């Protein structure tokens, strides 16, 4: 069995008089200083708001719900994600579309403060419906705003996959395509959900209340 014994070296005279070693230590610091001074570009610093770090395509940031080409959510309200979630921070209420007999979420809320960004919901989804993005700038100033609903989560169809983070992998991570675009044909259900207009009351009854009502602010 390989064992190496580390011996302590006695300080030499030169090291004991202290000044010489101080000078050597200063040299190390000076080398760093000079290197950084004349090679400003190689500084390790990331000047955050102006320069951003590129996180990998697996980064686990805020969630989104993907949509089909026609703008309806892919989510079929199967409760897999909320079952797999260790933080129990996903609340779903299912409803059924009368025309197509398809289930969809009438309410889908994620408590971003409870969430531990583990990605289990993405792994659990059988419908390619929930992804995580590389969005990490999540700070909020009221607790009531921490619960995000369909209006904040659903993205328009054909979102590029480029800004996405953790998402289901198909053997390997897919880089091309669009969010939720597995290329499977989907029958058209209803009209599209234009991002900023009022949601189609037929489909999205959830999340019409102000967020502050859904979670009463505690404490304070």
């Amino acid at each position, binding site marked *: 069995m390989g064992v190496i014994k580390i011996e302590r070296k006695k300080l030499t005279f030169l090291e004991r008089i202290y000044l010489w070693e101080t000078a050597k230590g200063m040299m190390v610091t000076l080398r760093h200083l000079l290197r950084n001074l004349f090679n400003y*570009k190689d500084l390790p610093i990331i000047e955050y708001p102006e320069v951003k770090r590129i996180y990998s395509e697996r980064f686990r940031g805020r969630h989104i719900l993907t949509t089909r080409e026609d703008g309806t959510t892919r989510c079929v309200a199967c409760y897999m994600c909320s079952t797999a979630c260790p933080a129990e921070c996903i609340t779903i209420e299912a409803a059924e579309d009368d025309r197509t007999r398809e289930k969809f979420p009438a309410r889908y809320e994620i408590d971003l403060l*409870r969430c531990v960004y583990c990605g289990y919901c993405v792994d659990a989804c059988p419908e390619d419906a929930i992804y995580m993005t590389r969005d990490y700038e999540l700070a909020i100033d009221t607790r009531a705003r*921490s619960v995000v609903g369909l209006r904040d989560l659903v993205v328009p169809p054909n979102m590029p996959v480029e800004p996405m983070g953790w998402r289901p992998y198909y053997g390997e991570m897919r880089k091309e395509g669009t969010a939720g675009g597995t290329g499977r044909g989907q029958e058209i259900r209803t009209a599209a959900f234009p991002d900023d207009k009022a949601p189609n009351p037929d489909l999205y009854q959830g999340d019409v209340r102000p967020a502050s009502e859904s979670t009463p602010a505690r404490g304070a």
Partner: protein
Amino acid sequence: MSKIEHNDSIIGRKYADLPGQGAEKGAITLPGERAREPEAGEESILLTTLETAMGWVRGNSLWPMPFGTACCAIEMMSMLASHYDIARFGAEVVRFSPRQADLMIVAGTIVDKMGPVLKKIYDQMPEPKYVLAMGACATSGGFYRAYHVMQGIDEIVPVDIWVPGCPPTPDGLLYGILKLKEKIERGEIRR
């Protein structure tokens, strides 16, 4: 989007896009972004010049007092270290004494046993004081719905900024501090 090439680092960087154009942002709405839009009447609050100046001064010289207990504290240390260098925002004067600080960064799980300590330290801080809750645990207890974990520090102290994440990345935390700075400069927090 231009990449910044680095000689011997595997960390990629890029210049940030203009607001609203960012790939990270794009069409994705931020949590509560709609709610953030000013309501009618809110804009009519006029700040006096003195208050504006005070806000500006306060916002640019935050002296943080790190109250780090767990994993989040490690990421907070990353924020203080070379890569994110908080000194650029005038907040590098990390004070471990509550008497000399005005921003308490609560990073990490606060358990019931720690609660009185947190409260005591908060009480010792001089006015004006701000509290930033970092990470799932400090903000809400996270996935520890358990017999010994406080379900969010707002049970005992008022919180000004909530930073979700587990742990939030150092950039995420910096964003929170910048938001707090904005909030102070706007004069929204007046204690």
